[in-house]
């Protein structure tokens, strides 16, 4: 196998890794701050992409549907809409069930995701078919031997990594990030310190959901296509990545995201039938869970008896 | 004097850098009731958890009779005849009083798949026997409670839940009963009644030894044969309640006297 092909696989793997990490970062934020798994997350990724698509349709009506400017507008639209949705969801479904068994939260969000998916399929114009996603990024590429380095891929990697690093800095460096981390470590003590618990939770859910929207849009721009069912697999992959990395740690999410992308890439190269890549990747995840039951960067916790 | 039933030597439990229990020596004889006291966080519950296999000990040795039971799984410790209650009740609230008691009687029940699903003669016999014995046991604590054998624990007030938890620990006729603060959340009068009932039912269980963690000193004074005082994970005194409560180290631990 020559260098160009390897580099091609590598580049593809990196884009995937960035997308997965963004989704996983959301899972990790929610889990960190409230110890819940919000399983509708994958469908929020999808809904974010579709919101952007709708925004694009609006721009086209105004004859503004071209170029980087349009890309920026639809991205902002998707992120804002999903951030709002995330906060509303936390307020309506997740906070009220805070003292119920954790499984109930998992189920109720699974079902919310299903509802979201079905709503798009049924109510988005022609939503049950794959929709082409507009090509808004500069269509340039450089070739090095067999490697065609597309400028848009590079752009997507930069924006995606930038977003994750941005969220990471927000959490690590700002006052509000301090509050988020305090709530994540010990909600009650955080409240004693004067932190408004509910506001921090809603903010975290908005943040994670906004990131999900960005992941969805990145996915759409990269593959030039979105469909109503794309969230399911992306959600499960994001969840796997977050869990394998160790829930509650942003680093874990990044490691998990790239690990999963790497496994898929290896699977695609390794097997004669590239479609086995998901089987291979999920098989590895199950084995990994057996080996490190609480993830690679696990947070220690002990039960009080 | 008979040889100790339970013999603990040098038991140490660590959580990370924290030594929750430091080289603890303890012996318990058959039929003895030992009060275990000490300020908050002194290692009392940690001792119970290490003894019952919930926390692995860092070092030390625990023997029951002639058997070494150090660091065994909780279910093996139970099989060996040590049962307990929990500081915060750990009953199955959605299940009936009888079900909860039968969880405690696991050792004496038949768990084969075949006989539980088919035939069921033995099951029927065990159920009937155990309904009777459960009722008898509950009656020693509270006659009205005995009539609510098939109600869910969820419907019971705190005092009755405590009683159920104590009965769950007693029904398998253990050698040693560990009571972790049975008075928590109850009034003086309720605590007194519970302890009286416990002492009375102990009469019917020859050989039963009890370790009691308790904050109400009045209770300890009234019921214990001997007291052990823990502070910072270390045993600081041992003896009769009178001796221990007069001990300057104990007073220092509780009252901060120099």
């Amino acid at each position, binding site marked *: 196998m020559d260098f160009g092909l390897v580099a091609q696989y590598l580049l593809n793997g990196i884009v995937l890794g960035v997308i997965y990490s963004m989704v996983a970062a959301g899972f990790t934020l929610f889990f960190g701050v409230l110890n819940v798994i919000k399983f509708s997350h994958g469908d929020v990724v999808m809904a974010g992409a579709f919101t952007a698509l709708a925004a694009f349709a609006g721009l086209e009506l105004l004859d503004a549907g071209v170029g980087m400017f349009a890309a920026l507008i639809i991205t902002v639209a998707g992120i804002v809409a999903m951030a709002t949705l995330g906060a509303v969801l936390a307020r309506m479904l997740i906070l009220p069930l805070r003292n119920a068994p954790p499984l109930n939260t998992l189920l109720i969000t699974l079902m919310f995701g299903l509802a979201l998916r079905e709503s798009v399929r049924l109510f988005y114009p022609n939503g049950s078919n794959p929709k082409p996603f507009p090509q808004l990024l500069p269509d340039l590429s450089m070739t090095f031997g067999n490697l065609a380095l597309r400028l848009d891929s590079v752009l997507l990697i930069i924006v995606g990594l930038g977003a994750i690093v941005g969220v990471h800095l927000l959490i690590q460096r700002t*006052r509000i990030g*301090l*509050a988020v*981390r*305090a709530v994540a*470590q*010990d909600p*009650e*003590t*955080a*409240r*004693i*310190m*004067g*932190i*408004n*618990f509910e506001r921090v939770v809603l903010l975290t859910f908005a943040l994670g959901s906004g990131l999900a929207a960005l992941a969805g849009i990145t996915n759409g721009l990269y593959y030039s296509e979105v469909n109503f069912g794309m969230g399911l697999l992306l959600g499960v992959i994001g969840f796997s990545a977050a869990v394998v990395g160790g829930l509650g740690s942003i680093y874990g999410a990044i490691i998990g995201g790239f690990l999963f992308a790497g496994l898929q890439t290896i699977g695609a190269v390794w097997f004669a039938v590239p479609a086995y890549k998901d089987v291979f990747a999920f098989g590895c995840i199950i084995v990994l869970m057996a080996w490190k039951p609480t993830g690679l960067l696990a947070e220690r916790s002990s039960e009080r008896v | 004097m008979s040889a100790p039933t339970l013999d603990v030597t040098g038991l140490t439990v660590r959580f990370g*850098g*924290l030594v929750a229990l430091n080289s603890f020596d303890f012996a318990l004889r058959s039929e003895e009731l030992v009060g275990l006291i000490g*300020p*908050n*966080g002194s290692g009392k519950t940690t001792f119970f958890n290490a003894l019952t296999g919930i926390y692995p000990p860092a070092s030390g040795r625990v023997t029951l009779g002639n058997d070494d039971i150090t660091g065994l799984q909780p279910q093996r410790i139970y099989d060996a005849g040590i049962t307990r209650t929990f500081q*915060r009740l750990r009953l199955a609230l959605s299940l009936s009083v009888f079900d909860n008691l039968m969880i405690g009687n696991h050792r004496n029940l038949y768990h084969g798949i075949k006989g539980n699903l088919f035939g069921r003669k033995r099951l029927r016999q065990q159920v009937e026997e155990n309904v009777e014995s459960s009722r008898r046991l509950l009656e020693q604590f509270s006659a009205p409670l005995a009539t609510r054998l098939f109600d869910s624990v969820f419907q019971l007030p*705190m005092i009755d839940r405590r009683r159920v938890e104590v009965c769950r620990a007693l029904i398998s006729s253990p050698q040693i009963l560990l009571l972790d*603060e049975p*008075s*928590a*959340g109850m*009034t*003086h009068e309720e605590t007194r009644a519970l302890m009286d009932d416990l002492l009375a039912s102990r009469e019917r269980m020859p050989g039963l030894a009890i370790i009691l963690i308790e*904050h*109400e*000193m*009045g*209770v*300890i*004074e009234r019921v214990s044969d001997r007291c052990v005082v823990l502070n*910072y994970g270390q045993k600081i005194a041992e003896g009769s309640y009178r001796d221990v*409560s007069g001990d300057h180290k104990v007073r*220092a631990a*509780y*009252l*901060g*006297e*120099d």
Partner: protein
Amino acid sequence: MSTLLQIEDVISGYDQADVLTGVSIEVPAQQITCLLGSNGAGKTTLIRAILGLTPARSGRIMFEGVEITHEATHRIVGLGISCIPEGRRVFPGMTVRENLRVGGYTETKRDAVDKRLEEVFETFPRLEERADQLAGTMSGGEQAMLSIGRGLMSAPKLLIVDEPSLGLSPLLVKENFKVIQRVNELGVTVLLVEQNVRQTLAIAHQGYVLSKGRIAAHGDADRLRDDEEVRAAYFGN
């Protein structure tokens, strides 16, 4: 002498355990008031009620003449009540500096927070040495120090200290009590909740003894020191 915190006939319960059955206390400004009682007497429940973590079922809690009985915790804290919780509860995965910043969360001006940080570091030079160490990796004594420092970061009017002696060696307990006394001398009102009678009464001005969810005795520290009720609350005789 004005009353900073006033608790009237509070009834509260938590997890069906540790129930308060009508507790009234007054905390005068500028003083150290202590609340004594053995394990399970209801001390922690009372603190939770003051902070709004387990709101009182009935009764009233007033701070500076304003009723706070049913306020949200962050608002109560924002009024100038700070708490050093039982078991210290530092944020183990954060550095010492970050822990202190969380303590000053109610202050929105960065300059003010930095200034207080300086002050706390002056009081506890040890914390400055360890400013960038993760709190979870420090010894129990250092964590206790951090917890007190964190409680001071919000420049509180009332500082509630919940069992500072818990799990500490006698020497450290003594040090902690000295610090609390010093804080009080600087003008902060203190509500000190303790099991440890002698050392507490040595620094407190006045106190209450809580036993089984009721006030069993109250009065000046000197009077309580030799009170039979105090002994009874602990040793039941």
